[in-house]
């Protein structure tokens, strides 16, 4: 191995090592636990103060907003189309910012942020974007069929 090649190799190893270390640091700082509402409620101490991505179902009738500030509640739900159980654990969410167009009540969402006491302070709200490979929205067919039947009767 000639000198130039050796220098290149040493440089490459140093850069790769530095990048790996920086990656580790970034991941430790920026990592968010992806959990559900039930996960949090069963072990709140574990997640207090940590970055979280909380998955839940928005509870109908809880969304209050002035266009910029939003308050709503997310609950553990069995999945799309499954009603929220009366005893399902719930967490209030506070969010300030632009809400995604697709956000609404009674839908699955992911909120990113941290717990502040009993409230989840979200820095980002993510909805399952009604994008490719999915239609207008999850309940559209059901709603349209019901509406057509009601119109006829």
């Amino acid at each position, binding site marked *: 191995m000639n000198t*130039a090649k050796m220098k290149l190799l040493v440089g490459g190893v140093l850069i790769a090592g530095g990048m790996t270390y920086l990656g580790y640091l970034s991941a430790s700082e920026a990592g968010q636990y*992806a959990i559900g509402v039930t996960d949090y409620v069963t072990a709140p101490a574990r997640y207090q103060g940590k970055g979280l991505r909380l998955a839940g179902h928005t509870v109908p009738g809880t969304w209050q907003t002035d266009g910029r500030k939003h308050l709503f509640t997310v609950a553990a739900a069995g999945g799309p189309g499954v009603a929220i159980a009366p005893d399902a654990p719930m967490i209030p969410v506070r969010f300030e910012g*632009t809400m*995604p*167009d697709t956000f609404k009540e009674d839908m699955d969402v992911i909120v990113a942020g941290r717990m502040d006491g009993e409230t989840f302070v979200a820095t980002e709200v993510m909805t399952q974007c009604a*994008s490719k490979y999915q*239609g207008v929205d999850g309940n559209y*067919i059901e709603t349209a069929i019901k509406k*057509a039947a009601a119109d006829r009767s």
Partner: protein
Amino acid sequence: MTALDRLLGSILTPVLGGASVKLAFFLAVFGLVISIWGAVARREDMIRSGKRAAYAVWALLLLAVLCLERAMIRRDYSLEYVVEQIDNSMPLYYRITALWGGMNGSLLWWALICASFTAACLTVNRNRFKELMPWVTATCCYVLAFLGLLVSFVCDPFLPLSESDPALGFAQLLAQTGDGKGLNPLLQTYWMTIHPPSLYIGYIGFTIPFAFCIAALVTGKVDQEFLRATRRWTLLSWSVLGFGVMLGAKWAYEELGWGGYWGWDPVENASFMPWLVATGYVHSVIIQEKRGMLKGWNVFLILLTFLLTYFGTFLTRSGIVQSVHAFGSGPVGGLLAGFVLSLIVVCTYLVVIRHKILRAENEIEAVLSREATFLYNNVGLLGFMVMVFVGTMFPVFSEAVYEISNGSIGNGKVVVGPPFFNPLAAIITIGLLIMMGIGQLVAWRKTSGAAVRRNFTVPLLVTGVSWIFFLVVLPKEQLASLPFKFPNPWAVAVLVSSVFVIAGIVWEYWIGVRSVQSSHSQEIETAWKSGTRFSPEFLIASGITGSILGWGLASVVLATFPLWTRLVFGGAVGIASLAAAGALSGASRPAFNVMQAAVILFVRNRRRYGGYITHLGITLAIIGITASSLYKIDESHTFTEGETHKMGEFDLTFKGLELRREPGMWRVMAYMRMDKNGEKFGVAYPERRHHDKGDQPTTEVSIHESALRDYYLILEAAADKRIPGSPDKPATVTIRLLQSPLVTWFWFGGVLLLGGTALAAWPERKRKEVTVAVTSPGGVAVPEGAAAKEHP
């Protein structure tokens, strides 16, 4: 719909279309087998059969796509896919583009593009690369067979509605409403016509270099021939993929209404990873071409690029990683994983058995050489890809680590987002920019001290001055209204590195121009005196250069005018340049002036300077991304009707709310007047659209674009007594104003990337024509590569 239409719809379309894709699948399998057989047995007739099979696959898939398009255009609701994607209110162009709006149709479209690339490659190379071509055909047929399998038996777009899964409810929907479900309103935009096809062409185009790479490995000919065969296909795919990614960002910026264009979502990352690796390949392949080095590395990169295109598809359609984009998690994911795995096995086997011929012919001689900087850039790009890969797969890795260390499942999944990606991306980008800048100014093998002094002094001086400018002037002028007093150190580092790249490009070009002028003055004089005209290359280059300059000029001067005005202006300047060049070419002059020398230098070294235009485009895009990300001003305010409020640079007045009924939707538009320094600047109509289908409104932002900054208005909320559920009070709107500097540089950089690559990759004139050009003044002055000999 006539009886004939119904007959065609109910019988011919599913039968003809469905049969076509199935036959295409079997023919692709046949093409694969017969091509390999023919290559091994050296049977020309079999090799020919393989090629014909590939052409037939293309024809059949084209027929299938036409059948499906017909069904979608005519709203033939006898097919499940049509009911899913089309509804009665959709206009013609969305019915056409809805072909790739869903999984099944997009896979068919993917297969057709792949077959088209295959057919084009076979036609272009019909008399070349005799030993490689049977294996190229076989590899392409393998990919086509896989796609054919998916479209024929797993994701059949020709499935009759009568055979559709009742649980999906399509049949019931049609019976009850007489209407289809229709394409999502978010996809009913003109971006849908251009962004997905660009990405598909980018992704799928890599099939050809991959096929040549497999062929080279099988035949043991990983040499110059292999490089020649793949170069243009790689450049085409790489530039179109890069452009497609940028179009996706533009789509998100204009349509999604959150003021950003990149969120490090798995879907975005999936398209970015192969582009990064391919960027490394298009550079390292030059080292192999010039110095016979990095053969194994190049093979690795091209194989990895292709595998990443399918891995990305697997990632987003398997459900393994959650994305904000809702992708299915059906059997396609498993099949894609199997396909990628099969390719990994074959590639690994071939690389292992051919490792001896993949050894380098030469070694790197000096750290300060072009090949060394290319190599570092390659490492940086691959490191970038690994970072994106790790970040994207972090939930999977972290969960696996948690399960192993704790022995339990769940709760260990950690997701990383922009705070993880952004700082790492910034560090790597700075390193890449510095290497790009150095690489342009050093020579192959090694660079002498004198050359270093000559080439680096001016760019480094310019960079130093810019550093002082960004550090001292920028915070006072540009950032006076920002909450922080000092410029962001990341921004300064990126901007200063970018200046170094641009200064390097300009300086290197200037040295080239001077060498053209001085080295060939005698020949030029003779040529000019003969009065002959410039070569067509010169005229074309003048036109293109003029258009680019015109567009750049128009972007600044006509910043407030509509896009078409700038396009027309750019085109007009281009035509004027063309005319001027034509007129000049007849004149009699003793020597070239700077501009003429500059154009001739470019024409004679098109590949090199086309590459520099691409570098310039990427650098401008990086500057745009940095400035718009770090120096964005974001404000929000709730207005009552008639209220004026200062936001950013403007006094914004809410003049009223307009409700407009249009087919399929209500449009709620806020009429905002914008005043700047007491004078009217313009008006804006940010709006929300409430669609009849579904209860999710869409945001239509109002964007005022200019060369220096974009003003981006979002209607976040609107209340008016005319809107059901609103209080009986004067109208109120919540408006968010974003002021993002230099966003247009990002888009312009993307255009330069595509244009520069096209210039670099455009086929050279044949040797015979070059000889003719030597006798004419236009092209003659500088023989191919002369400038490169004169300076690094």
